[in-house]
């Protein structure tokens, strides 16, 4: 594994790939996001953290235009704010999305799931990156004729990741990729993500703090639709009280999970 930037104690923030200002989302009658400001640093993994129901998933969906939103969203290399643009357009600017519940197409085969993602690659002027996919997910190739709905949860997560990597996104939005996976699979997914992060900017929503510790450089913490903390991941995690205060039960749950999880064998 090459030298992807690992958490450093203090680093000057690099150039932002994505800049979000004053993002608001209303769903039904609730004001779910109430002015979120967010920078995603180019080449780094930014963690979007927070307790359950604070609006992490909604933030990712708002960035993509999957929910109606207001505010300013700027993507490097694209003129103007993309906040008015429809989802497919945003995605074709090189934004990949791995949703919270994987959302693979259950009735389609693995191969068909991947084929769907091809146009995204072509839109950005590259050929679909099957090499990387085979390299990272060798098992999927053997199961290419299988219906995605019959795969295990971990395998479905791999399909969701492979599908989006095919298009070589510039920015990858990943929502709780380790949710509901066994400790061994958590490690596996974390390893895949680490390799992906070597070449792609990532905005990662994650509850598992050991994964956060290994992957994330900078964190943004949400509470009730607002940003309540911003800073270096290592700094936050080093302060157990502050972590518990910001992330609530997540910290305790994670302590347990940590004990049972074989630490990802990645350099740190």
């Amino acid at each position: 594994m090459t030298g992807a930037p690992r958490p450093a104690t203090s680093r000057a923030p690099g150039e932002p790939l994505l800049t979000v200002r004053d993002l608001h989302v209303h769903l039904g009658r609730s004001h779910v996001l109430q002015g979120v400001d967010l920078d995603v640093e180019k080449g780094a993994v930014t963690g979007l953290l927070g307790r359950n129901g604070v609006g992490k998933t909604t933030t990712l969906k708002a960035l993509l235009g999957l929910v109606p939103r207001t505010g300013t969203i700027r993507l490097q290399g694209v003129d103007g704010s993309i906040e008015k643009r429809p989802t497919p357009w945003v995605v074709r600017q090189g934004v990949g999305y791995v949703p919270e519940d994987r959302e693979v197409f259950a009735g389609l085969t693995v191969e068909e799931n991947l084929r769907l993602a091809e146009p995204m690659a072509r839109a950005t002027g590259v050929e679909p990156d099957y090499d990387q996919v085979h390299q990272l997910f060798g098992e999927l190739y053997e199961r290419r004729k299988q219906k995605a709905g019959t795969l295990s949860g971990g395998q479905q997560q791999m399909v969701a990741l492979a599908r989006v990597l095919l298009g070589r996104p510039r920015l990858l939005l990943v929502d709780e990729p380790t949710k509901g996976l066994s400790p061994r699979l958590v490690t596996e997914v974390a390893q895949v993500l680490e390799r992906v992060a070597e070449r792609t900017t990532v905005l990662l929503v994650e509850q598992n703090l050991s994964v956060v510790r290994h992957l994330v450089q900078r964190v943004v913490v949400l509470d009730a639709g607002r940003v309540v903390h911003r800073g270096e991941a290592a700094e936050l995690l080093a302060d157990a009280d502050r972590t518990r205060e910001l992330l609530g039960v997540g910290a305790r749950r994670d302590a347990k999970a940590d004990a049972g999880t074989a630490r990802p064998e990645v350099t740190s």
Partner: protein
Amino acid sequence: MSTLLLLLATGLGLGALYFLVASGLSLIYGLMGVLNFAHGAFLSAGAYGTWWASQHLPGAGPDGAGFWLAVTFGVAVGAVLAALVELLLIRPLYRRHIEQVLVTVGLSLAAVALLQGIWGSDPIPFPRPSWTAGTVRVAGAAIPADRFLLIAAALAVLGGLLALLRYTRVGLVIRAGVENRSMVEALGIDVRRTFTLVFAVGGAAAALAGALGSVYLGSVTPQQGTSLLIFAFIVVVIGGLGSVTGSAAAAVVVGLVQQLANYYAASGVGDLSVVLLLAFVLLARPQGLSGRTA
């Protein structure tokens, strides 16, 4: 025995008609979440378009090759109308399913009224090619040829739809869209482009049902679309919204049950059994409503 065969053939013919209407309804609902009440109007467009062409279109007529030209014209009218409805009325209300359904309800009312205003509400005799009036002997039973016309048309449409869904890129997008439209968009695909296509294809199938159903009935009325539509809805729901093969299977079941019960029990019992079948299916497996295209 020959009565039973006749009933089976008629039931299958009826099922074929239901399938032609239901397949489009099912795909439209599955992909777009629109319960399309205007589908009856597409059917009527096909019927009246065919009838009009057989009288006025050069080269078209009530028999022979002219008849097929007339049918082609009717189907084209249905497809164009459906595409226009999608582009002009459904698309501007994108994702507002409720308004979309309401608009189709308004259209269905207006369309019937318009046809009535132009051509009156009395049945108009429909062109019937001479060979459809003949019979085919099957195992001793004399089966009217028009039954086979309906069944063959439905089989052709079923085959065409399945090929479209299974072997084309658009079909792949439709299948994925029926399952989870947002995720298709999140992969950078503009699903809206497929909506017009699905409407046009569904409209064409309904228009074919309108034309061939009128051949079977021997006449065309403005209300024909609406009455077929209700049973087509039932077929769609029993078959599973969004599923073409499900619609086909359900159409066969509904057509046969209706024919057989109407004959062997009493007139009307068949219709009632179909309705009960729907209630039973829905209550037994409400989850069966979820989309599955193939």
